[in-house]
């Protein structure tokens, strides 16, 4: 990748050294040619893979990779007593962790600033998009409901953390298998042991039909880095640290806008820029939906 021309040092220096010393100039030089250092065009996201059922100790799980960014999400269900205000609703608790393995910037002991921010955005999007009807998590009205603990671990942080985390959360919920439970004589909820499916039940199960969670709509997101007049879809962590500002667009599976987030930064998000980002997100939505459906159908075949 020889950088040619220009009166700057770029013609006299090794590419790697130039990249480290003048990261901004290095990237701007690429942007001029409408290409990015990893060979992508500006509007293209990185390769994405989804593997369902990566954690055997959880009720639903997914391992998602966008480029090098890796997220492991798992859902565990526990029985709880619903609150008095909403006696026939379950609850979802979302947690996002960035253990120190994921990036050289995260230091142990000191909680990172990014993790709580992503966790908050995630729980906002999951709850406000109406993906899960909390009433579906109810078991016995006023007595028992499911508490869904969603834990997402970032195993490798290389930019666009929110996109990867949301995708892994959606995938983990689509993989979720709800265990069969029944009501015991003392009025407590007990698990029905597996492999009892066809045979007689000692107690009639409470949720025989509800083995899968019904997902009304699925939220998908795309983060764009904005720099001067350029819009870069799905930035890597290097790009994120150099570019001026970011914009995250969340769309649901029918293409409706769920949330927009531009966390401050320099002011130059004109309406046209936002529209361009939404258009990119629409395109990305189609790609991701396809990848997720493939992962789910692969799972069903197994």
């Amino acid at each position: 990748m020889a950088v040619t021309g220009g009166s700057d040092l770029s013609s006299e220096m090794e590419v790697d050294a130039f990249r480290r010393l003048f990261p901004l100039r290095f990237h701007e030089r690429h942007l001029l040619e409408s290409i990015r250092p990893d060979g992508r065009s500006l509007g293209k996201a990185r390769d994405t893979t989804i593997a369902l059922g990566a954690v055997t100790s959880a009720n639903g799980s997914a391992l998602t990779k966008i480029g090098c960014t890796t997220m492991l999400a798992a859902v565990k269900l526990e029985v709880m007593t619903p609150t008095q205000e909403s006696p026939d609703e379950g609850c979802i608790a979302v947690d996002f962790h960035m253990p120190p393995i994921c990036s050289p910037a995260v230091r142990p002991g000191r909680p990172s600033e990014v993790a709580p921010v992503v966790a908050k955005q995630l729980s906002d999007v999951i709850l406000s998009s109406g993906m899960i009807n909390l009433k579906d998590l109810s078991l016995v009205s006023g007595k028992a409901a499911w508490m869904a603990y969603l834990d997402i671990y970032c195993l490798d942080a290389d930019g666009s953390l929110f996109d990867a985390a949301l995708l892994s959360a959606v995938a983990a919920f689509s993989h979720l298998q709800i265990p069969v439970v029944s009501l015991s004589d003392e009025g407590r909820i007990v698990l029905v042991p597996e492999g009892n499916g066809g045979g007689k039940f000692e107690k009639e199960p409470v949720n025989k039909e509800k083995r899968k969670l019904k997902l009304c709509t699925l939220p998908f997101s795309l983060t764009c880095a904005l720099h001067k007049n350029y819009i870069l879809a799905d930035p890597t962590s290097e790009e994120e640290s150099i570019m001026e500002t970011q914009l995250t667009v969340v769309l649901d599976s029918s293409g409706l806008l769920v949330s927009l987030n531009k966390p401050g930064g320099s002011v130059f998000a004109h309406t046209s820029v936002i529209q361009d980002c939404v258009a990119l997100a629409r395109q990305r939505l189609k790609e991701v939906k396809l990848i997720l459906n493939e992962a789910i159908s692969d799972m069903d075949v197994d």
Partner: protein
Amino acid sequence: MEFVNPEGLRLDGRRATEMRQFRAEIGVVSRADGSAVFEMGNTKVIAAVYGPREVQNKSQQINDKAVVRCEYSMANFSTGDRMRKPKGDRRSTEISLVIRQTMEACILTNLMPRSQIDIFVQVLQADGGTRSACINAATLALADAGIPMRDLVTSCSAGYLNSTALLDLNYVEDSAGGPDVTVGFLPKLDKVTLLQMDAKLPQDTFKNVMELAIEGCKAVANYIRDILMENTKRLECRRGV
């Protein structure tokens, strides 16, 4: 409870001196200097090494050798019941210390004065023997990071149930209350660096159990060496040497 049936098979169908299946992979975290995933049966851990790098807390700097730091943590979904323990509970502090001291024994810290090496291990799935799996993953990650070491430390556990010595205990066997001997072993030097045991055990049986654990460590060492050789060959191939 019967842990070994009359045919000599254990709950998961293994023989008494049979280990669970290993699987290891190097270079799983792109931005770490060295990283590895290590699986022993259903136990799965991921380790990342950052360093040698500048010491973050200058007061901890040592002038003639490197500082080694280690942090162990478990994912909330790694065990059967969801854990709600805060980070830095006693158990993980203890395991962090054990891993750090074990790895320190084999890293040539005197070659990297005034620097720091961070080892982070994260348990993704726990099914007994997390301590051993973490040490094995950390060894692979350190080797991947190219940090000079005396030897590859490997670790394995062994226990004694139903008057039989059992190699590589899983969670059910581990929580049965019998003795659990964890050994950290330097195979080339033929020396033991870590030895932990809880519960009572007669002295002569202890010797057998410990020897069994050491055999396990040697098996792990062979596997780790194969993985590293394979990785080196791949790198060599890529460079076109």
